[in-house]
C-alpha cells in the first residue's frame, strides 16, 4: 500500500485492530500494560480530551438561544453555504481525477509512473500556506494560468472558484490512496472472466470493477470533503475573503477571535467540530461496509 498521510486512515478498522477476533488468553502476558496505558491515557486526556471539553463547555455555557442566534446569523449561513458547496465541488473533482490517477497507476506501466505516484503525495507534504501562495500566483491575472483564463472571463482568485481550487489541491491524495490498494487487490482473472463472457470494456468497468471499489471510492470522497471543509491555509491566500462572497467558516471563526468575540468563535467552531465528527462516523460506517465487501470477495 502506498500513501502518505491521512489517506492511510482508510483501512482504519484493520489498522487499529478492531476487526480481528480477539484471541482469548493473552490478555496481559507481556509486561508494560500499566506503563503504556498510563502514558497513552494521560496524553490523550491532556492533549486531546481536555481542550475539546474546554471548548464544548464554553459553547454549552452560551445557552441554546444565544448559540442558535450565532450559528444561524446570515453571515454564518452564507459561510456554511460557501464552505460546503466548495468542498462538495472539490470532492467531485477529486472523485473523477483521483479515480483516473488510481486506475492508471495500478493498471498500466508507463514512463514517469513513479514520479506521478510521488507527486500525488505533494498536497499532503507541502505546507498549505505554500500551496496557497503557489495557487494565488498561478491563477492571478499575471500568473501562468491566469493569463490564459482571465481573458476568457474566468476569474479564479478572489472568487469561489479559487476556494474550490485550493480545496481540491489540498485534498487531492485521498481518493487515489484509498482506491489504489483495493484496485490492486482485484485479481486479473475477474476481469478476464467478464471479458470472455462477452462484456465490453465499459461493462467490465461499470459492472465488475466499480462495485468492488465503490466503498473505498466513497470513503475517499468523504475524507476529501471533510478535509476540504476544514482547509484554511491554502484558501485564505486565494479567496480574497469577502464576507458573504468568499468567506469560509474557518475564516469567520478566525475573524471572530480577532474581534475578541469568543462566544461566536466557540459556537461556530462547535458547528465545524460536529460536522467533522459526523463525517468521521460516516467514514467508519463506510469502512465497515468495505470490510464486509472484502470478506465477501474472498
Amino acid at each position, binding site marked *: 500500500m502506498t500513501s502518505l498521510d491521512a489517506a492511510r486512515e482508510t483501512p482504519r478498522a484493520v489498522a487499529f485492530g478492531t476487526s480481528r477476533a480477539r484471541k482469548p488468553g493473552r490478555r496481559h502476558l507481556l509486561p508494560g500494560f500499566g506503563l503504556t496505558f498510563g502514558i497513552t491515557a494521560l496524553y490523550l486526556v491532556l492533549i486531546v480530551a481536555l481542550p475539546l471539553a474546554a471548548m464544548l463547555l464554553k459553547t454549552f455555557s452560551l445557552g441554546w438561544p444565544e448559540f442558535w442566534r450565532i450559528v444561524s446569523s446570515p453571515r454564518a449561513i452564507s459561510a456554511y453555504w460557501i464552505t460546503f458547496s466548495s468542498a462538495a465541488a472539490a470532492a467531485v473533482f477529486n472523485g473523477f481525477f483521483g479515480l483516473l*490517477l488510481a486506475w492508471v497507476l495500478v493498471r498500466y506501466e508507463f514512463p514517469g509512473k513513479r514520479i506521478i505516484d510521488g507527486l500525488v503525495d505533494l498536497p499532503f507534504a507541502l505546507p498549505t500556506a505554500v500551496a496557497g501562495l503557489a495557487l494565488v500566483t498561478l491563477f492571478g491575472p499575471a500568473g501562468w494560468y491566469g493569463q490564459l483564463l482571465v481573458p476568457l472571463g474566468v476569474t479564479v482568485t478572489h472568487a469561489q472558484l479559487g476556494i474550490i481550487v485550493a480545496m481540491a489541491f489540498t485534498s487531492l491524495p485521498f481518493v487515489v490512496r484509498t482506491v489504489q490498494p483495493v484496485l490492486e487487490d482485484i485479481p486479473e482473472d475477474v476481469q478476464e472472466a467478464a471479458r470472455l463472457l462477452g462484456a465490453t470494456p465499459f461493462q467490465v468497468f461499470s459492472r465488475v470493477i466499480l462495485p468492488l471499489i465503490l466503498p473505498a471510492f466513497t470513503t475517499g470522497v468523504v475524507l476529501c470533503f471533510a478535509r476540504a471543509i476544514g482547509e*484554511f491555509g491554502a484558501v485564505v491566500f486565494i479567496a480574497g475573503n469577502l464576507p458573504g462572497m468568499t468567506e469560509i467558516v474557518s475564516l469567520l471563526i478566525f475573524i471572530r477571535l480577532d474581534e475578541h468575540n469568543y462566544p461566536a468563535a466557540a459556537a461556530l467552531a462547535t458547528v465545524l467540530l460536529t460536522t467533522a465528527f459526523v463525517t468521521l462516523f460516516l467514514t467508519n460506517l463506510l469502512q465497515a461496509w468495505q470490510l464486509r465487501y472484502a470478506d465477501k470477495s474472498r
Partner: protein
Amino acid sequence: MQINPADASLPADPRRPNSAVAWGLIGLAYLMAGAVLLVPLLLIVVTGFREGVGVYLANIVEPETLHAIFLTVLAAIVVVPINVGFGIAAAWLVTRYDFRGKRLLITFIEIPFSVSPIVAGVIYLFLYGGQGLLGPLLAEFDLKLMFTVWAIFLVSLFVTSPFVARELIPLMQQQGGEDEEAALSLGANGRQIFWHVTLPNIRWALLYGAVLCNARVIGEFGAVSVVSGAIRGQTNTLPLQIELLFNDFNVTGAFAAASTLALLAVLTIVLKSVLERKTGH
C-alpha cells in the same frame, strides 16, 4: 512486476497499455498531474530562486525569516520526539493487550485527524487562553501559554499526535506478539524485549511516522495562526511568515521562504517512498 518487451515468448503483460483508451487515460493523467501538481511545485521553486541563490539567501537571512525558521525547527525538535514516544506507547497498548474501553481509546487517538486546523487552535484557546477554562488559574500564577511558543508546541502536539501511532498499529497488529512472548519466555525483561525485539521490527515504520509527523509540524498553518499571536520575530513560524511577507507585498521574500518549505516537502516525499519500500507498503 518487471517488463521485458524484447521477450516475445512470454504472454503480453496485461499492464502494458495496449489500446487507444489506455494511452488516452495515461495522457490525461500526465496532463492533470502536470498541471495540478507539478506546475505549482515548479512555480514555487523557480520563483524562489529566480533572482539567483544570492538573493534567495539574502531573503532567508532576514532576521524575521531566520527567526521563523529557528522557531519552526524548534517546534519539530520538541514535538516529533514526544509524539514518537506517544505513538510507541499507544501502539504497544492497542496491539499487545485486550482491555475494556479499547475502542474508545482508539477513537480518541484518531480524533485529531478529523479536527480542522482552526478548530484545533480554538480548543486550546478555550483551555489556556484568558477566556479559557484554565485561564484564571494560569493568570493567578502569572503564567502565559497562549500567544507564546508554548502554544505553538501544544497545538502541534495535538495536530500530529496520531501520525506515529497510525503507522505502527497496523504493522504491530500484523506482526503479532509472538516474538515478544518468545523473548519473555526466554527470560528477557520489558526493556530488553522492546529494544531487542520490538524496535528492530518496527524501526522503518517508526521512522516513516516520524517523517510524516515532522512534515506536518513544519507546515501547520491554521492551528498555529490561532494560538501563536503571530508576533513578528517572536512567535511566527515559517508558514505564518510566508503569509506575512505576502501581505506586505514582499513577494520575493515570501517565495524564498516558500521554496525552502517546498524543497523540504520534496525531501519528505523521497524519504517516504524509500521508507515505503522498506516497510513493504
